[in-house]
């Protein structure tokens, strides 16, 4: 058995947050005695990642995803629990560890704002001590894969959000890290650019065998990239396994789309009518009754076409979050 690239056992992070109430009286009281509250951002999670795996790390805002990524990359000190990345304890921030990882935060940027990205690339080259020939090759590959050629020599502030993100990702990967943490890398990007970044992540993982842990609120990202997902909610692990299993486990309904010759039909008796457009009716039925309802529909009505679908992944995830625990 190979050693896991990332190993997390019973990981916890508790923040102490001071509480303030509105009003002068409360403010005075706070001066004397500041009231604090413990917030358990990460509350005992465990999972491993094998080398070369791409895993989607999901959860609603405030679930503890970013806190976990920061503990994995060494920015945060865990309150309790065990975490190793490539055998290193992240918060010690050893140079050999830092040279092998990267963290891309979709909402933050590391590129120097007012000057062309190539300067930041060159700085990272010397910071990570990348050999000149390796740098040239890597820059060449990244330029080709992300189509950076026209962007490298423009001041970063003049780039569009998508262009900037491509440069951010390139800057973060020039030292060819084997562990890649991506915190919402596609946030705010248009569909084409999202697809572009996704294709790139797949390619990077394939070419360099990198282990990737990715958070995203776009389920398209997750579906396209990750076979396995880890879902957390309120700092606790809710699901860890194949995306298809997650869909199975949390889906209680199927969607049946029927096209009828006679579109006046009332299908309320067969299931919940979600929409009715141009003779195309969408029904939602409990999973267990799918076969029976389909049979009845085909027997009773002049059906032209019929389609059975799983609900969209967004809906499944919403259910997971709403439920908290399976």
């Amino acid at each position, binding site marked *: 058995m190979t050693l896991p690239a990332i190993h997390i056992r019973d990981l916890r992070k508790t923040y102490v947050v001071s509480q303030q109430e509105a009003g002068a009286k409360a403010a005075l009281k706070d001066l004397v005695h500041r009231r604090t509250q413990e917030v358990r951002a990460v509350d005992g999670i465990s999972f491993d990642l094998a080398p070369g795996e791409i895993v989607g790390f999901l959860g609603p805002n405030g679930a503890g995803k970013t806190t976990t990524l920061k503990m994995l990359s060494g920015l945060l*000190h865990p309150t309790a629990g065990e975490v190793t990345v490539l055998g290193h304890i992240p918060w010690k921030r050893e140079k050999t560890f*830092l040279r092998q990882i990267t963290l891309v935060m979709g909402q933050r940027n590391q590129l*120097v704002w*007012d000057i062309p990205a190539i300067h930041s690339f060159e700085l990272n080259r010397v910071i990570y*001590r990348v050999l000149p020939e390796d740098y040239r090759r890597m820059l060449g590959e990244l330029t080709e894969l992300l189509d950076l050629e026209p962007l490298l020599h423009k001041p970063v502030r003049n780039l569009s959000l998508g262009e900037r993100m491509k440069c951010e990702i390139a800057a973060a990967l020039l030292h060819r890290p084997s562990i890649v943490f991506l915190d919402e890398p596609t946030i705010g990007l248009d569909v084409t650019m999202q697809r572009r970044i996704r294709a790139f992540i797949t390619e990077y993982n394939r070419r360099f065998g990198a282990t990737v842990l990715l958070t995203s609120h776009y389920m398209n990202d997750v579906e396209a990239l990750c076979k396995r997902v880890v879902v957390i909610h309120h700092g606790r692990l809710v699901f860890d396994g194949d995306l298809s299993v997650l869909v199975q486990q949390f889906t209680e309904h199927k969607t049946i789309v029927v096209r009828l010759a006679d579109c006046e039909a009332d299908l309320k008796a067969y299931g919940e009518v979600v929409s009715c457009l141009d003779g195309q009716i969408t029904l939602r039925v409990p999973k267990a009754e799918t076969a029976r309802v389909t049979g009845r529909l085909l027997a009773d009505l002049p059906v032209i076409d019929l389609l059975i679908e799983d609900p969209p992944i967004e809906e499944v995830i919403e259910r997971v979050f709403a439920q908290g625990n399976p």
Partner: protein
Amino acid sequence: MKGLAELYVQQFKTTMAMMFQYRASLLIWMIGHVLEPLVYLIVWSVVATTGGGSVGDYTKTQFAAYFIVLMLVNNVTYTWIMYEFEYRIRHGSLSFALLKPVHPIHSDIADNVSSKVLTLPFMLAIAAVLALIFHPALSPPLWAIALFIPALLLAFLVRFLLEWTLAQAAFWTTRVSAINQTYFVLLLFLSGQIAPLSLMPHPVRILADILPFRWMVGFPVELLLGRLTLTEALMGLGVQAAWVIIGLVLLRVVWRAGVRVYSAVGA
């Protein structure tokens, strides 16, 4: 070492590119650095004229020499790290610095030295123009000129290390501007920026000798003006070296504690 040397060269190129982008603000910044000593120079010249040609042990032309040299020394030793650091912590860009396998101080030193090297020619030109106008009396002995160079470099190091350490206050409080204000007032009076320290009352001079401020600015200026004996100059260099060591120790201790706080409460 080779890796660090490359980092410094690359940071120099980056800083140059940035300064080229910020030409206007750079100009305003330089004007500020010229105006402040110029105002003191004019004020003290007027005081000297009305006081029968001199104040204490300074004549009008010696004041001119003092403040022109001070302007250059201040330009070389000045840092902006306290504002920079607060910004980095507030906007989270420090996180990126912590992810890099190099201590962030190296980029800061390199950036600082680069911008000094790039602005120095302009400051020297301005000093030359001021010299034509104010006729400074400056005739130091050769040994003073020779010792001025290490004194200036040590002054830069003392100031850089202590201000970099002080900047870490941003790890603990969001109100660093109060700390900065206090610091700058002390610096203004005790470094010799507002007036030569020899014009200050005796207790202030003792305080200035004990605290680090004089060793950041005033000492190299006094040295180049030929106001120190050789013994005083050598002792001064020793005090500066001691402050560099104190600065290094403080920086290490405070930085470690600061990062611990940062990684405990959320980066």
